[in-house]
């Protein structure tokens, strides 16, 4: 341990304790400890009082998620009366994704709620959201009431430095890797201690399933467009939760498509910041899809902000041809089990739906290897302690037998 600590020279300390060596000595807490909930609530207050934060819906959403009203509900769900005795595993080492601004804060929060001391590598990019959240965290940590939390929070920045990964992994009781397959492969070069555990968030893809008749029965189509926009364009349709394909069920598919995409296109015109290369990228992707199977149809579009490609069959390679920033495959489905091969891909993560969620039951009962979440359109980004098929409370704690 001592030896590896010499390799920490590349680290910049942003928030909290800079005494990483002392982290393994910090006593673990039971999950949802009162001190943690109070600390998070104070951070929420600081964020909600921050004028600058108001401009960032992702920061505001995070702030609401860590208010005590919300964390108490989580406590009831995950650690209600009569459950086993749990304790944080110890040191949690988090590697946050480089291009999602607020994700590191959710990861840290999961680590705190489960009673761990946390070392978090934050995104290297200077997102304003990171500055705002770090400011709130530092402010609250400096308060005498929350001094206890100081030794449990350490936010750092460093480059892709193997020596630092080695040193931090060597002291990790749990390592949490965001950032996809390439990052996982890179970080796994650094060994964990024998009892070290890992939660790795790999590259995933997601789908939307819309029942045409349910959609046409709705009157709040502008709101649905808004929700779908938040699921997709808000993260350049490149989050693991963003649908890459829209699957239509029901009878009046063409009518529903015209209405749905028309609404969305209007909204995208208004809100999305388009980058010129994206149009070229989408045209390239559309032609690659066209070559991959017979009968592909690039739907006529008014501009390059929204490109739809109808595919007649769900081939094995279709998801390797996905693109982002407003590029959607479309498939007409008459039997939900047609999706089984696609959902049997273990990269398949979220299905967002509009219609009846019960239709997915046969798909799950078919034993598919994919699908970790089935949530309504508009909820794909809602973070929860069950994420990507992992129940994080049990992943980040030890269950103590007391007989």
């Amino acid at each position, binding site marked *: 341990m001592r030896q590896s600590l010499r390799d920490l020279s590349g680290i910049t300390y942003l928030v909290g304790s800079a005494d990483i060596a002392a982290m393994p000595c910090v006593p673990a807490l039971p999950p949802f400890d009162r001190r943690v909930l109070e600390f998070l609530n104070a951070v929420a207050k600081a964020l909600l009082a921050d004028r600058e934060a108001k401009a960032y819906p992702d920061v505001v959403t995070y702030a609401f998620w860590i208010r005590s009203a919300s964390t108490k509900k989580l406590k009831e769900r995950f650690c209600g009366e009569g459950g086993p005795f749990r304790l944080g595993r110890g040191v949690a080492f988090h590697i946050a994704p480089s291009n999602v601004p607020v994700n590191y804060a959710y990861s840290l929060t999961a680590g705190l709620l489960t009673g761990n001391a946390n070392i978090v590598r934050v995104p290297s990019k200077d997102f304003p959201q990171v500055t705002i959240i770090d400011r709130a965290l530092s402010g609250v940590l400096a308060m005498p009431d929350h001094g206890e939390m100081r030794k449990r929070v350490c936010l750092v920045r460093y480059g892709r430095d193997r020596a630092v990964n080695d040193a931090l992994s060597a002291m990790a009781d749990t390592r949490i890797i965001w950032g996809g397959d390439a990052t996982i492969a890179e970080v796994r070069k650094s060994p964990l201690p024998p009892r070290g555990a890992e939660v790795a968030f790999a590259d995933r893809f997601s789908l939307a399933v819309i029942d045409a008749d349910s959609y046409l029965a709705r009157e709040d189509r502008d709101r649905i467009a808004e929700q779908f926009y938040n699921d997709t364009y808000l993260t350049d349709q490149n989050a693991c939760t963003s649908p890459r394909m829209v699957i239509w069920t029901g009878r009046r598919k063409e009518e529903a498509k015209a209405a749905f995409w028309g609404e969305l296109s209007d909204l995208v015109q208004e809100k999305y910041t388009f980058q010129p*290369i994206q149009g070229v990228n989408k045209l390239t992707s559309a032609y690659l899809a066209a070559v991959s199977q017979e009968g592909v149809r690039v739907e006529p579009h008014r501009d390059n902000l929204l490109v739809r490609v109808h595919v007649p069959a769900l081939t094995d390679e279709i998801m390797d041809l996905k693109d982002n920033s407003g590029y959607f495959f479309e498939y007409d489905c008459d039997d939900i089990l047609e999706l089984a091969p696609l959902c049997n891909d273990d990269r398949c993560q979220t299905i967002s739906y509009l219609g009846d969620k019960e239709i997915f039951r046969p798909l799950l009962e078919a034993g598919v290897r994919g699908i970790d979440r089935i949530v309504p359109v508009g909820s794909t980004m809602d973070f929860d302690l069950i994420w990507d098929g992992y129940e994080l409370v049990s992943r980040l704690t030890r269950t103590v037998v007391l007989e």
Partner: protein
Amino acid sequence: MTFEELLQIPPYSLAREEKHAILTERLTELTEHHRACCPEYRRMLESVGYDSKEVSGYEDLPFLPVRLFKELTLKSVPQEDVVKTMTSSGTTGQAVSRIYLDRTTSANQQRTMVKIVSDFLGASRLPMIILDCPSVVKDRNMFSARGAGILGFSIFGAKKIYALNDDMCLDVDGLREFLERFQGQDILLFGFTFMVWQHFYKELARLKEQGVTFDLSRGILIHGGGWKKLASEAVSPQEFHDRLQSVCGIDRVHDYYGMVEQTGCIYMQCECGHLHASVFSDVIMRRPRDFGICAVGEQGIIQVLSTIPESYPGHSLLTEDEGVLLGEDDCPCGRKGKYFKIDGRLKNAEIRGCSDTYAAKFA
């Protein structure tokens, strides 16, 4: 109109209407030809519902993003007819374009280039200094863009030397001997923009400080390959010209725009500093947002059209370059056709998302 007939037309002689009619006919025919002979291309056309009956001019023809030639094998002739495979000069690790040429397309590329360049150099061959090293053309099986460019332009040279040794040092003695031998004659110089700057201009500037100078006032420099690498040194085209002139007296400097995907149809820079489309090809600037056609003076993504490609479906391509159409048929140099300028490469998109992008880190 066959390509043979087209080739008889002087390269900058047709005004808008006439050129439009001829190119529309030829390019529509090429579209049908590739549809029949390249199954991948057929699927692309079908995906966008292409219907030749709806084409009123070549601006209505589909265009393929050049990146497709990196991802797919696209050819309209059987493999046994392929005599050359050209590749773009991608940096290590990047995918390269592969362009498959049969005898006809390869020959037509060269004939077209002769027509275009002769308009600037005259019909007779000139003594030629190649501003590169000999090894770049040695492997004839895999033509890199650099090697292909040098070989392509070599046909304009009578007696040739390479100005650089294989270690990229200037061959000072060889150059001096060559210039003495052809004193008083026009001399053609050819090289890639970055090479010219890095290994020729900089060395001449250094030698000049030591009192060693060369007189290239009878030189005509043709250079191409883009300004991307020079942008990092903040060298503008004007400065490039001025500083070269100050070290060796050269005044006739012609940049050209071209790409391996449409070899032969290069866009030469005239005496007024404008890039020109010949009758064998054209450019259309397109609006990024909807691929609509830009007005004169409006920046857009450059679509290039060439009447040459028969062995691969590359007659209508969307580049990743941005440019501005400056005018048509009225350049003060007297050449007909569109004239334009290049503003550089489109920026890579900054995309949010959960998966880290390693490529960007190492680019």
